[in-house]
């Protein structure tokens, strides 16, 4: 009798407590969290709507935005000093994920996901391959905020004028470039990155489509693989023969500038810059966007696809509040808003939504862009340097040096690629 009464009382007592566990957006009303963001297209599109977060949750945001190099300097300083000055920050898992995790800088989001998440968040709705990029040893360290990759931008009008077809295969590019050069001397046939540390991103597709890889079949890091050398040679020669002068100092800034100004006919550059290219009205008419042409002999099309993500600092004193920001900014609603600004969402539901379809169908480049992104999400890979768990930036640096040598004519592809085998294997950990 007593037992039943007791358990009844217990149930009554526990009942309201369970009800209290229901999700409340305003749980951290009045708190302030510090946000550190890299100045990418995503950040620029997000900034105008940040107050919506504060309206919804009552959490105030102190946002710091920096360009990438300065962002890294400041973020690394704060994290190394174990400072509680930063609560949430942007991160690039393909570059620094394992390194940051090894240093213990990411907070594990799994417990927050379980107990502190809005019921309509839908974590699984985010593309699986992108999600997994932020999971290390079962710990969820970041949530994807976009999907991006290099796309083949080409000038339809120049091709038409010179009576050339869009190249079907990767190996056709030099011939096409030569034709353009002969036909129209006022435009550079090709432009791409050459600046140290940045080259891997547009180069990766060249290597994979040529049948190459960044490691030998038995898993050892290497560039000294015949097909890889083919890809390196193709990229380097294209830039050397048909690229603008000074390409070894060019990163996306110059390449996109040239493309937007109409001074280059083809390039392989980030999808994230589509909006900026289209800022010039002429480009809306004459730009074509596609996935990098596949390899002729191999038939392979394996482009590069990456994503930026947001994380909570392990040294933050307001992890839960920071998590609220993360789930808000990666929610379906916010991603839909950002998609209108040209940010490709990592949620299939948003990507395939009517609203997004309407936006992408507004002009031809946009719809081509959306199609291309869907394709690279399915077929792409985020690895564009020799494998290394925690020394990825160094691997990217070494790769850039090899390419620069080819572009400058200082060494042929085979010599340059094979000379660094020892180096890249030394940093493979």
């Amino acid at each position, binding site marked *: 009798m007593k037992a039943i009464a007791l358990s009844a009382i217990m149930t009554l007592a526990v009942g309201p407590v369970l009800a209290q566990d229901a999700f409340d957006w305003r749980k951290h009303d009045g708190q302030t969290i510090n946000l550190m963001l890299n100045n990418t*297209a995503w950040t620029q599109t997000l900034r105008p709507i940040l107050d919506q977060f504060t309206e919804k949750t009552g959490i105030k945001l102190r946002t710091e935005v920096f*360009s990438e190099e300065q962002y890294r300097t400041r973020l690394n300083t704060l994290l190394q000093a174990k*400072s509680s000055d930063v609560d949430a920050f942007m991160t690039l898992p393909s570059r620094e994920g394992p390194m940051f995790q090894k240093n213990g800088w990411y907070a594990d989001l799994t417990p927050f996901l379980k107990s502190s998440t809005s019921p309509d968040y839908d974590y699984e709705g985010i593309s699986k391959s992108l999600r997994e990029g932020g999971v290390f040893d079962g710990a969820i360290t970041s949530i994807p905020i976009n999907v991006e990759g290099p796309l083949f931008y080409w000038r339809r009008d120049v091709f038409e004028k010179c009576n050339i077809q869009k190249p079907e295969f990767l190996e056709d590019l030099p011939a096409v470039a030569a034709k353009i050069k002969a036909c129209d001397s006022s435009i550079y046939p090709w432009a791409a990155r050459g600046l140290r540390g940045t080259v891997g991103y547009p180069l990766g597709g060249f290597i994979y489509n040529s049948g190459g890889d960044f490691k030998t079949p038995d898993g050892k890091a290497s560039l000294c693989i015949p097909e890889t050398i083919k890809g390196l040679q193709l990229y380097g020669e294209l830039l050397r023969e048909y690229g603008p002068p000074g390409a070894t100092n060019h990163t996306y800034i110059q390449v996109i500038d040239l493309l937007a100004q109409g*001074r280059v006919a083809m390039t392989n550059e980030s999808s994230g810059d589509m909006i900026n290219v289209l800022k010039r009205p002429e480009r809306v008419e004459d730009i074509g966007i596609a996935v990098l042409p596949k390899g002729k002999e191999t038939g392979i099309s394996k482009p590069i696809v990456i994503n930026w993500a947001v994380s909570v600092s392990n040294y933050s004193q307001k992890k839960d509040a920071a998590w609220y920001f993360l789930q808000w900014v990666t929610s379906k609603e916010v991603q839909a808003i950002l998609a209108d600004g040209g940010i490709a969402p990592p949620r299939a539901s948003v990507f395939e939504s009517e609203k997004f379809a309407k936006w992408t169908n507004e002009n031809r480049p946009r719809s081509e862009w959306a199609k291309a992104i869907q394709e690279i999400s399915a077929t792409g890979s985020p690895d564009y340097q020799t494998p290394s768990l925690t020394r990825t930036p160094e691997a990217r640096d070494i790769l850039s040096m090899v390419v620069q040598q080819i572009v400058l004519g200082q060494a042929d592809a085979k010599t340059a690629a094979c000379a660094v085998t020892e180096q890249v294997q030394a940093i493979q950990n």
Partner: protein
Amino acid sequence: MNDVRHPLLVKAAFSIGSLLFLFPIIWMALSSFKSPLDVTAYPPTLIFSPTLENFGELFGRTDFLHNTWNSFVVASGSTLLGLLLATPAAFAISWHRMSWPATVSLFARMAPGTLFLLPWFIMFSNIGLSGSFTALILAHAVITMPLALWILLPYFDGMPREVVESGQIDGCGGLSILVRIVIPMIYPGIIVATIMSFVFSWNYFLFALALSGFETKTAIVASFNFIGEGTTNWGALMAAATVIAIPPLVLTFIVQRWLVAGLSFGAVKG
């Protein structure tokens, strides 16, 4: 040295020469009035319709005015601190013909700035000064103090000892000799040291990048906001750069007339 025969010709030559010399600065200032897409246009547009949109972006949509004020506070503070420490030290070093303190004071400028970022951040965080003006001023004083010291040394060296000794005869102590006799004599050196210290501190971004907080972010760190993936807003960047360049220029203009020929101790030596 006033026997110039053709002053007008000289002025003209200098004016043309300085225009050529200043081309990058002129380019920067002009670019701040161009719309962002026009800044990197080729061929470079010499004739264009000026716009104030960059400055609008700068002062309207960002916190730049506040950042500029912060720069001013930090630069003034560190210049003041640097001079306060350096002037007596230069006097002592020169008078006693010591050499090691001058070298020691340069220690902080021998190591790469990046060496200090992390330890200072930890240091200031631990005493609760992270992101404060105090931290920034102290960090920048590490730059201004040795600079002021080394600039002042030749001026102190060039002063005749009799002047100091005559002050001693009058019964003055070291400090009052310094303040009442020596400084008035070498004030051009003080002026040069002040300008240099202010400018160096004003332009230094590395320490502020790591040590500044939300409220204390300096202008030059803020100007990096305009470089970014997707769009480097060259227009706003050049506008920021132009605004940043103005205070040092104005300062120089005001004080350069004190850098005149003939200093007073030429008279003492006779």
